[in-house]
């Protein structure tokens, strides 16, 4: 049994688990997936890549940003049977660039290139999930910190 008390202007309600078992009848407004104001996921409604997605961390904005964008765009728009098979050169450029900044891209080279492809394929497969969730499902203080190193963290984590 939940009970309730009032302390001045503040109301306090104590609830048991059973009290909260019945589904809520609170009404929430449906979200418009195309709302331009909302934070977009990795893939925009028009199919383009959102380079500013927090899930990408600093990949698109760092010193190797342009190489990364080229490689990933090529992969994303690739219509080949083996997706991205024509993008080998772009990925090689990206890898070379990343090797020049071992501090920023701290993986071993072969792991990194395969992971970059793996993450880009998984990420394009589930575009909406890549949205705001990764920064937030990481626990709290990492919310904003993961913003800056999330992809690097993802690579090291997996």
């Amino acid at each position, binding site marked *: 049994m939940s009970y309730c008390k009032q302390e001045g202007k503040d109301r306090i309600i104590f609830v048991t688990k059973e009290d909260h078992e019945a589904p809520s009848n609170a009404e929430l407004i449906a979200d418009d997936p195309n709302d331009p*104001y909302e934070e977009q996921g990795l893939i925009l409604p028009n199919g383009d890549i959102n380079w500013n997605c927090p899930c990408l961390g600093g990949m698109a904005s760092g010193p190797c940003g342009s190489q990364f964008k080229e490689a990933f765009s090529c992969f994303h728009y690739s219509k080949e049977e083996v997706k991205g098979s024509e993008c080998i050169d772009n990925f090689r450029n990206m890898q070379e660039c990343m090797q020049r900044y071992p501090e920023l891209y701290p993986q071993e080279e072969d792991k990194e290139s395969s992971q970059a492809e793996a993450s880009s394929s998984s990420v394009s497969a589930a575009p909406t999930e890549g949205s705001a969730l990764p920064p937030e499902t990481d626990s709290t203080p990492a919310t*904003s910190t993961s913003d800056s190193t999330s992809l690097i963290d993802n690579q090291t984590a997996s």
Partner: protein
Amino acid sequence: MLKCRTVWKKLAPLARASSTVCRQNVRRTGLTSSRIPACVPVAHMSTGPAGGGRENQLYILLVGAACVGGAIYTYRTVKGDSQRYQDRIEEISSRSYKRATAEPATPIQSEPSVILEPEPEAAPSLEPEAAPSLEPEAAPSLESEAAPSPEEPSPPAPDAEVAVPETTELPPAAEQTTTADEPVVEASPEESAEPAAVPVVEEEPSPPSEPSPFELTELPPAPVVESEPAAAESPAAEPTEPQPEVVAQSGGPAPDSLKVPSHTPYLLIGGGTASFAAARSIRARDPGAKVLIVTDESDPPYMRPPLSKELWFSDDPSVTETLRFKQWNGKERSIYFQPPSFYINAEELNGAENGGVAVLTGKKVVHMDVRGNKIKLDDDTEISYDKCLIATGGVPRNLQVIERAGEEVMKKTTLFRKIEDFKSLDKVSRNVKSITIIGGGFLGSELACALGRRSTEYDLEVVQMFPEKGNMGKVLPEYLSNWTTEKVKSEGVKVISEALVKSVVCKDDKLEIKLKDGRLVKTDHIVAAVGLEPNVDLAKSAGLEVDSDFGGFRVNAELQARSNIWVAGDAACFYDIRLGRRRVEHHDHAVVSGRLAGENMTGANKPYWHQSMFWSDLGPDVGYEAIGIVDSSLPTVGVFAKATAKDTPKAATEKSGTGIRSESETEDTATSPVASLTLAPTVEQHQDEYGKGVIFYLRDKVVVGIILWNVFNRMPIARKIIKDGEEHADLNEVAKLFNIHDD
């Protein structure tokens, strides 16, 4: 008197006309009687051609006095100007000396004083190259300056012990890299500088690395930069140590008028979280963008929350140097957003093919010309921009009583905000017996808990005092604030609530804080955490509006102040479409607003929509996340889970049975329907009563703020509720959405 005479002769016609008026005035004001005795000796001595009239002689006196005064004034001004000028030159040389000891990249201002020394030794072409880099007034007089003071060059150079020829060659080596003759001229002085530098390596790691950053302007920055300091510092220093130094060297004060780009497409004023988020956003959206960050700090962008939280809980004794901490997911990272290799040098910005982010440290923007789209730095360099972001953050407020208390008290007071404050407070906490924190908000409470944890280790007394009734009194509803205060006390902090500081004095090397109600607190050191004053210094020169209610620059919903000027972070008072005009001083807001500003600077035209959140941890039992307007003066509705044994994080980690058993016993009786009515009062006294729950803050029956109390990973739901802005009849139903009973 002779002077008067000659002047009188010259001014005779004019004087006569005005003397009649004068005479009449003198008569009228009745000064005659008092003046005349003073005049008489004058009258006797001056035998002016006009002869006679006392009034004439009075007039002579007045005119003479005026001329003498004018002459004295002119003389003084000229003298003062030259004195001021001399002081300025000395200050510049001493400033370059200070810079040289901290960051050995010799600034150009010290070079002129040195440049004329090696002239006979090194290439005479140095001087014409030096000239354009000098301010016009500096050049001519320095030639005379250098001659009488040949000793001056040596102090600016870092290694005083090394012979003068070596020191004078190091700066020219430094200066030459900025001129066109770099490759040619560099070779010779470096050859002599290198062997001279090598013996000094052990003593002072800084000078040998001085030539290296300048060599590096030719080579790709990253790999060489990292190896050079490693080579230069033969005593095994941590690899992370030279990096901030190198950043300061390569991106720091070394860029002077020659090295700083005169134009940048994107200029970000301030080098904090908002600025970095904007830089990232711009780079992501505008391919090849060139972004210049100008900051008066000596560090590249870093995050602030760990300075009052994680860094204090680190087991690493060298944490004040490494500034690394462990995140929730167990992984370690630095507080710097990116290592120095992420940034490019300011002078390379314009030439960088794919653009980049450059950070100019140690430079303050003092003037902003909105019409001309340019800013001026404290060294008079001008930089023009296409788009500008003001992310100047703020400065910690101080208590007036402390400011008025004098130097002695100020020396024992910390205003906590930056990395250097963290380092100094860490040192202080190891060396004193008692620290008092004034302020009961986020920063004050977090520092109190952090220091409280150390109190047992270091035999340290930690006192926290504030005017409110409990910790976070302005944020949490009273019952929760009281509960939190008990938690803070259990962290080892002596909490003095309802404390208004009346005066602070320094007695016998201890501080005595007197409160308005008469209580006296004796302590060794004070930390003042009483708020942040937003930095709006540029508002005047830029002609930007400052908000009178919240402080900070007033901007619209898209964070724009003027056509090409945006403001983000702590300094921005913006319009929130849902919650109204506000100014937010939290980390996530800096990230969100910085990112939004960056998007809008690249043409997105989006308003502030994604609501930022904040969080705080107070010891192992209390952690909460919050979103929206969380003001304790608003009516609140709190929905708490009736705690069972497994809910507190402490209980979850406890292996022993006793604690859990005793708690679950009381729980068992409390949950039975009959017993709950009678036992409800005893449950209230139970320690874990507010274990976890959701608190809604209401304004006109609409939820405008939510606190998730020990409930995590539910922020998206909270954000949605605030975004909807609906009136909910039963907030318990809304609370169900959070599943607070689940883990």
